Structure formats: C-alpha cells, structure tokens
C-alpha cells in the first residue's frame, strides 16, 4: 500500500517537480499550492505525511502547522523551505523535520523515508 503524502508548495514549478519526483519514488502524492486547500484535503482524506513550505501567500506554513495540531491529527510534518532562519521560530518544534530546499532532493527523500518508510 503506497504511503500518501500531502505537499504544500506555492511555486507552481516546484510543486510540479515534487509531485513528479516523489511519485517516481513510490508515493501517492497530493500537491497543493496554499494552506487552505491543504486543510480541505486533510479534512477529506487521510495522509501519512505532510510537507509544507513556510512562506506562502495567504496562511503561511507556521499557521498551517498550528491548525493541523488543532485538528488533532497525528501526522508527521516536514518543513521544506528556502529559509534557514525559520529554524529558530517557536512553532517549528511541532514539525518532525526541517529541510532547507536544495537543488538535490536527496535530503527530502531521506527524511520522508525516515518518517513513513
């Protein structure tokens, strides 16, 4: 049974890249471009892992994490961002991993494997 990933990434091309690459890596991927759509998806479907950007139009990733916690869904979360500095943000402790975006997706793939197998 394929593991289900929910990816929140507001950049169209990156969203496409993650969807393709993680599908290729053997996951069932839902990729959305903003936090509200992500929350809708979470209410409708069950996921094994959430990967979210932080800086996005509308609700940002930190707000999304807060709301996911309020939903009491016990789903591991990976923060995937261009910003190193958010690591010191109070709310990022709630995430299970913090990955700084890199041209190689290896670290992200490793973390996913670590968290959901």
């Amino acid at each position, binding site marked *: 049974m394929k593991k289900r990933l929910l990816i929140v990434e*507001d*950049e169209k*091309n*990156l969203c*496409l*890249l993650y969807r*393709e*690459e993680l599908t290729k890596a053997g996951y069932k991927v839902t990729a959305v471009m903003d936090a509200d759509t992500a929350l809708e998806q979470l209410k409708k479907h069950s996921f094994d892992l959430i990967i979210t950007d932080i*800086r*996005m*139009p509308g609700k*940002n990733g930190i707000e999304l994490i807060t709301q996911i916690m309020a939903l009491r869904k016990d789903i591991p979360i990976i923060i995937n961002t*261009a*910003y190193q*500095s958010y690591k010191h943000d109070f709310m990022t402790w709630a995430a299970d991993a913090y990955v*700084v*975006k*890199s*041209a*190689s*997706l290896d670290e992200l793939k490793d973390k996913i494997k670590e968290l959901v197998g």
Partner: protein
Amino acid sequence: MIERYNLFLHEFSQEASKELQLFSIIAQSFFQPFSLMDNLLVIMTALTAGPGLGFNRAMLFLTEGDCLKGEFWLGPASAEEADSVWRVLSTPGIGYPEIIEHNRSLLTREADTLTKRVKKLSYPLYKEPSLIPTLTASARQMILVRDARNEPGVDKRFAEMIGTDEFLCIPLVSQKEGLGEIILDNAITRLPITGRDIELASICGLMAGNYIYTAKLQKRIVDMKKVAAMGEMAMFVTHQLRNPLVTIGGFADQLLDPQTGEKKKKRNIQIIRSEIRRLEKILLRLSQFLRIDVREKIAVDVQEMLNLVLEQIRPRISGRRIAIDMEIEAGLRVILCDPTNAGEAVRNVLDNAIDAVGDEGRIDVRAYRESAEWAVIAVQDTGKGIPEAIKDKIFDSFVSTKEKGMGLGLAYVKRVVDACGGRIEIKSAEGKGTTFKLYFQTQPRERGTNP
C-alpha cells in the same frame, strides 16, 4: 518672562575673557558637520589664533596603530610671516571664521613647509627608551620642555626640527586609549609658556581627545551598520535565489534520467528557461536598487510625469474594481527631481497602493503646493493599511508584507526622494488605508502666475 539665547554664541560681550571665547570656539567646532581633520584644524586654529591669545604654533600628531604620526603644523613659518599674518588678524572684523579659512588654505598650499615637515614624521610608540614627543602620548601626561637642545629626554631630530627650546606637549586621550598629541610653542614671540597657558592647553587637550574619540566611535558604528546591512543583503539574496535554483536543479536531473520522454524533456527545458529568466529579473532588480543614480535635479512637469506613471499602471488594475483619480493643483507646474527615478518612485508607491487595495477600492493621486518651496505628490488608498508592527521598518530594505515581495520598493522610493532633496510622510490606519506624501522642492512661485 523668559529669555532665549542661541546655544551657539557667535558674538561675545566686551567682558568675556579670551579663554571663554577660545573654549566656545572649540566646543562649537564639534557640532560642525565637517570631517574629523577639518574640525581638529579649528581647534588648533583656536589655540594659535594671533599673538594676544594662546600659542604661536601648534603641531598635531595622531595615533595610527603603534605609531604617532604627524598630521599638520599650524603657525607662521618665520617672524616676518608672523608679523604680516598677525597684523591682518588683528584688523577689526576679522574673526575666527576668517582665521580658520586662512589656515585651511595653508594646509592645501604646496609651499606650506611646516606641515610638510611634520607630515613626514612617524614615531613608534612602544620603543624604549620613550623619548619626547612619544613620551607624552605613552605616559599620558603633559610635558613642558624648557631646554630642548640640552635635554637628553628629547629626540634629537625632533628638537632640531621644532627649532625652539621651549614647547609644551599635551596628550590626546580617551578613557581607554591614547589618540595623539598636540605640541605648542611660542617660537616667534619667544614668550615663556606660563602656568595659565598650561591650564588652558590641558582643557583644550581634553576636549580634543573627547572629540576624536566620539568621531572614531561614530565611524565604527557606521562601519558596523554597513557590515550588518551587507549580511542582511547576502542572506536575502541567498533566499531569493534558492527557489529558482531548486527548480532548475530538479528538472535538470530529470533530463538526465533515461526514462524521461521527449515531450517531458521539452517541457523541462522550458521550465528551466523560465526560471533562469526569473533569476535574471531578481538580479536586475537588485542591481537597480544598489546603484540608484540620481542625475541632476531638473524642473519636471508634474502633469506629464504623473500621466506617464498612470499609463504604466493602468494594465495592473484592469479587471479589478479600483478607481484611480488624479488631481493636480492648477498653480503647480513643475517639481525639482530626476524625472526617471522620481516617476519610478511614484509608480512604486502606486504599486503598493494597488496591492493594499486588493480587488476593490479607490486610489487618489494628488499633487499640490504645500508652501512656496515645497510640492507634494500624495497617494491615498482605501486599502488594508500598514500593520502597526512594521510601521517603523517599511523603508528598510528587504522588509516586506508580501510573501514573495523583495522589500525593495519603498527602500527605493526613500532613496530616490532623499537624493532629490525631498522627504516622505506616511499616514496609515489598519483596515482604513494609507496616504503617502512625497515632498519635492519646487521652483518658487512667480508673482502674477497665481490663478
């Protein structure tokens, strides 16, 4: 009943002592927006201004690393020169400003042999035995030399150069460090240096030391700010470049994968190309910001400039219910600015207004005279307003409320308006809207053209 006095006194009463005037000149010089060296020149001038007060000549050394380096030497080079200079200086109407101007011109003159001589000097500070002049700086004590030629504590070459037996060395110090040294003498008049002279010189030395210390601290703060700004900038650029780079890298990897089909490869190349264009755009905006080059201010037709800006901005509001109104006061025709940059600055403000308004609202652009000298271009919107938390920071580079904003727009606006000699005022209420007022100088209103 109150009486008001200017803190910066220019004229003194008859009873005011020479000492009081001297201290006043020196204290005021610290408020002059000139360079450190220029203000030190004022202090040194005050110490040597004429035969009636103070000393004939004054020499300045400043500490540079482990060395005491000669900076300049003020005073007449000979008795004849002293005679003519002092005669001019005692003419009624000649005050300190004129004397300072005279000395300033001396420093830049080729033939100024005194300064030329002292400029060559450099003494290591921590070499034993410590001789005069370095002894004063290292011991942080005033030293009065009475018989330089026969005094073994005086550096022989220095004694030869100064050419007089009696001189006074005053250290320039801060709380922590030695900053330099002033050496005073009466080589022309041969008047003995008195106890009163020493008392006077000690206060001047303390004031000068304090001033140098403050100036150095200020420079250090400016340097630190520059470094901090550069760090911020480097961080920002890193982030801006990361997303496109990740995209390019990821899709390039797919190209290398033999399983990727031709159609997908073509798509990937197109994505890569568009991301590279984006990178280029980011670099272009950054470099535009970094080298704002405000050319000479010229009289620019406000109507023409604003029309052009509005024309550029129209496409952005098509399809939205945003009304933009423009009103230019009939009496206002021109403002003084660099038309390209000022127009671009107004466009940036309008861009922000449109972002703030969203899908529906109104924006008023008004241009009017505030006074005879100042004109205002005001942009008022009914948008969401500036969040209280960032009100103080909106002109800083790289601060943005937009998730993908670069935070360069308003920083650019401020730099341009500053460079044009104007200023900016903002009124904003969260949820109600924002008004930006850009002040530009205008040509004075001509009589009779008033409608």
